């Protein structure tokens, strides 16, 4: 038994079971966000993959990997996007080190 099952991605729609109107709203929003706009579908797929890796969602990682490929991206481009997101995440942690400096400075002579 493990918590993540590949098949569960295909069952996403079952979330509508107890609150269909909210899921419909979510789905409309989610799909609209991925349509071609000021950003291309490819750019959006790369953003999606980067965020998916950052939030460590295996379903989203699989879905957006496929979406990137189906929008013509290659692994070099996708890896750059994943590095950027991960670096931001790392940087976001590291910048909190300044809090530590502040705390240190406050109590130190």
């Amino acid at each position, binding site marked *: 038994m493990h918590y993540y099952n590949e098949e569960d991605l*295909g069952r996403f729609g079952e979330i509508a079971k107890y609150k269909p109107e909210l899921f419909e709203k979510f789905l409309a929003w989610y799909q609209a966000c991925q349509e071609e706009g000021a950003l*291309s*579908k*490819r750019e959006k797929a790369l953003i999606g993959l980067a965020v998916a890796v950052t939030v460590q969602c295996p379903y989203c990682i699989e879905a957006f990997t*496929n979406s990137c*490929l*189906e*929008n*013509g991206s*290659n692994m*070099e481009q996708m890896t750059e996007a994943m590095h950027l997101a991960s670096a931001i995440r790392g940087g976001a942690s590291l910048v909190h080190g300044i809090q530590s400096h502040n705390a240190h400075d406050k109590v130190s002579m």
Partner: protein
Amino acid sequence: MQTVVQITRNGKTALPNSPVSFSEKLGERGLFAETIDTLQVNVGKLCNQACKHCHVDASPARTEIMPRKVVEACLKAIRDFRIPLLDITGGAPELIPDFRYFVTEARKLNANIVVRHNLTVMFEKDQTDLPEFFAENETEVVSSLPYFLQQQTDAQRGNGVFEKSIDALKRLNKVGYGIDERLVLNLVYNPVGAFLPPAQSAIEADFKRELKQRYDISFNNLFTITNMPIARYLDWLRRSKNEESYMQKLVNAFNPATIAGLMCRNLISVDWQGNLFDCDFNQMLELGVEENAPQTIFDFDLEKLKNRQIATADHCFGCTAGSGSSCGGTVA
């Protein structure tokens, strides 16, 4: 008309295992030809390459080659019925002995000619003058290049294919292909894996930019083609455990708007022995044309074939997914 395909591959059906039948999706309307403006002739399975996704199972080991009498029958059909376009495919069609005869004779009949040219065959014995031959006969050249990078191209078409393909494209450019408006050079993208192709216009722009910047190569159009779940590609889907998810993907992406533009509605496919099929894919599945229609090029009759019912099976989802797929790219 959903047809039962009898042939098998490695002990399994030659058709993919689909969650929904194509005929069910198609509904009662069925699928009928509208005209025949293209004679697509598969002159044989001999090829200098053995690509992983090849629906023909072509390779250097294959011996099926169209004999002269079938070539003559194709030419007769073009002449008698004024078929405007001859689309020659294989294998590597250039490797059959009568290839150049076929092209030059068809040219005399004023047929437009498309050759599905794999690029690397240009470096085989006695083939180095192919660019000049194509140019003299003003044949349209359509060549597969699955991606503008080496890794993806070689992964699908074999080690070293990318580098040779780039050299071949430069040679085609040198005689004017992709530059002179009379000499059309179109490329074909197909996914290197179990996913659908990108939007044709978007990936065409990428190919044009990257090939120009990296190699100073020009071409006219890029056609995106969906991988058809039959033959070697189906073997790969099964081995890699992608058959179920790929078929689900094709079914989910079924687009009724593609039906009107499907290539089977305006072409007829001829195999190396002269048998007639609704498309090159049906040819490989030995799924012949409607029973009451002429069965071979020797008794070709446009009137009796142009409104025939198309034989379909679950592999047809490959042509109806998303923006659709044909030998000329998207259809919707």
